[in-house]
């Protein structure tokens, strides 16, 4: 019995786990504030989309292992179980999704350049890199235009990114990548290339950026995008927006958030609320059943209300009304998210 267990363990010991352990061993040499960390979020979500309700417990762990001050190994995985209750005493329909969002090795060469190799989040506009973590995004659903330019979210290849210029007036960042034709379930990728450049004005709290992607396979689809973020006066209001144009469709989303921290502080009962509004539209130029975008012109208005609980927990709620020629509908979402962050092993503070 013991032998059987040993064989099973050896078989299920994936190369990825071996890489992770190897990096953890290397990271043992790091000291002080550079202890490897385990971070991420867990959440329980429910959604009612034009009738049926589903529940999706989700875990999204992040592991970051620094190896000296120049190398960083980092990975983020996801585990999502979609549960859809069925009527007439039938058993619930469940679907387990698990995968790698990114698994990359970063080499911080100098103050202007960081080289990234592995599977990374496609640097197109802002949503994919910044707002897909469940503990950050205000709405459960990705924007309708998310499939444009993001290539499914992840890309396997190499990337060069960093800060081009930084001062008190403006910060200019860039990201440039290429991806190879890679098979496999978790690291599947197509030959493509892309660039993004963005400028952030700290005094105005304003950011603008432009992105471009080009794929060298199939019909050689391309995508261009622009984003605009603004925090007026550095206050509790946040405006985020993106525009994306693809081969067969184009669209935008605009999100407004207002944290009520002006009322008795951010830790008061009222101050923990954040009302949200997101407007989004997709315009179809030509049909394409494979691009994961709505088949017809679609508009959606999302009304959200988040509540920031103590201890890094948050309640997300939203109501959306979607309009399209195939039918209008209501979408209700609620969720509870907990964000965690701790060192990979115990030690002295």
């Amino acid at each position, binding site marked *: 019995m013991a032998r059987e267990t040993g064989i099973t363990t050896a078989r299920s010991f994936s190369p990825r786990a071996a890489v992770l352990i190897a990096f953890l061993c290397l990271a043992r040499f790091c000291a002080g504030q550079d202890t490897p960390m385990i971070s991420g979020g867990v959440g329980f979500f429910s959604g009612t989309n034009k009738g049926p309700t589903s529940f999706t417990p989700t875990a999204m762990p992040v592991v970051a292992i620094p190896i000296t001050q120049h190398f960083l190994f980092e990975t983020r995985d996801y585990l999502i179980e979609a549960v859809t209750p069925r009527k007439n005493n039938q058993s619930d329909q469940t679907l387990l999704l698990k995968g790698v969002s990114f698994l990359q090795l970063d080499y911080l060469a100098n103050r202007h350049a960081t080289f990234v190799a592995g599977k990374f989040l496609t640097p197109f506009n802002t949503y994919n890199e910044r707002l897909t973590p469940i503990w950050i995004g205000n709405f459960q659903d990705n924007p309708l235009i998310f499939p444009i330019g993001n290539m499914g979210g992840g890309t396997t290849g190499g990337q060069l990114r960093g800060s081009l210029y930084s001062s008190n007036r403006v*910060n200019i960042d860039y990201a440039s990548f290429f991806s190879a034709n890679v098979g496999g379930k978790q690291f599947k990728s197509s030959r493509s290339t892309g660039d993004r450049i963005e400028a952030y004005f700290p005094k105005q709290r304003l950011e603008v950026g432009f992105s471009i992607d080009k794929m060298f396979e199939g019909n050689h689809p391309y995508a261009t995008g622009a984003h605009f973020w603004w925090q007026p006066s550095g206050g509790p209001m946040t405006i985020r927006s993106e525009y994306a144009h693809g081969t067969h469709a184009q669209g935008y989303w605009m999100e407004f958030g207002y944290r009520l921290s002006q009322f008795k502080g951010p830790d008061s009962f009222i101050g923990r609320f954040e009302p949200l509004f997101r407007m989004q539209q997709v315009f179809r130029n030509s049909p394409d059943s494979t691009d994961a975008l709505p088949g017809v012109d679609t508009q959606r208005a999302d009304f959200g209300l988040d509540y920031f609980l*103590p201890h890094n927990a948050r309640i997300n709620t939203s109501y959306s009304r979607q309009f399209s020629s195939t039918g209008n509908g209501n979408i209700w979402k609620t969720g509870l998210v907990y964000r965690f962050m701790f060192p990979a092993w115990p030690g002295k503070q």
Partner: protein
Amino acid sequence: MRRQTLFAIALMQCSCLLGLAQTAGTPSPNKATSKPSAEQTKPAAIHATTEEQGERKFRENCSRCHNAPEDLPPRITGTVLLHMRVRASLSEADQKAILRYLAP
């Protein structure tokens, strides 16, 4: 008996006077805060400026996407900042300023 009482009172007064003299010779923490010497002012001012700068950088860069975590173990602040330097394309100077602010 009366002489002994007077001697005890005189002794107490002396000890009180000595105590007062000692207190007057040593600057109290409050006084030190209100009137620091020039040498003391410089590092404190630099520390305050650095902290303000770090806080400003934190608000400018990190608060664009998320709130500050309520509990950040000091042992992983360097790792978090390295991670965010790549993810958010932080400049090296901003990374260091925020690190000094989060883990002075």
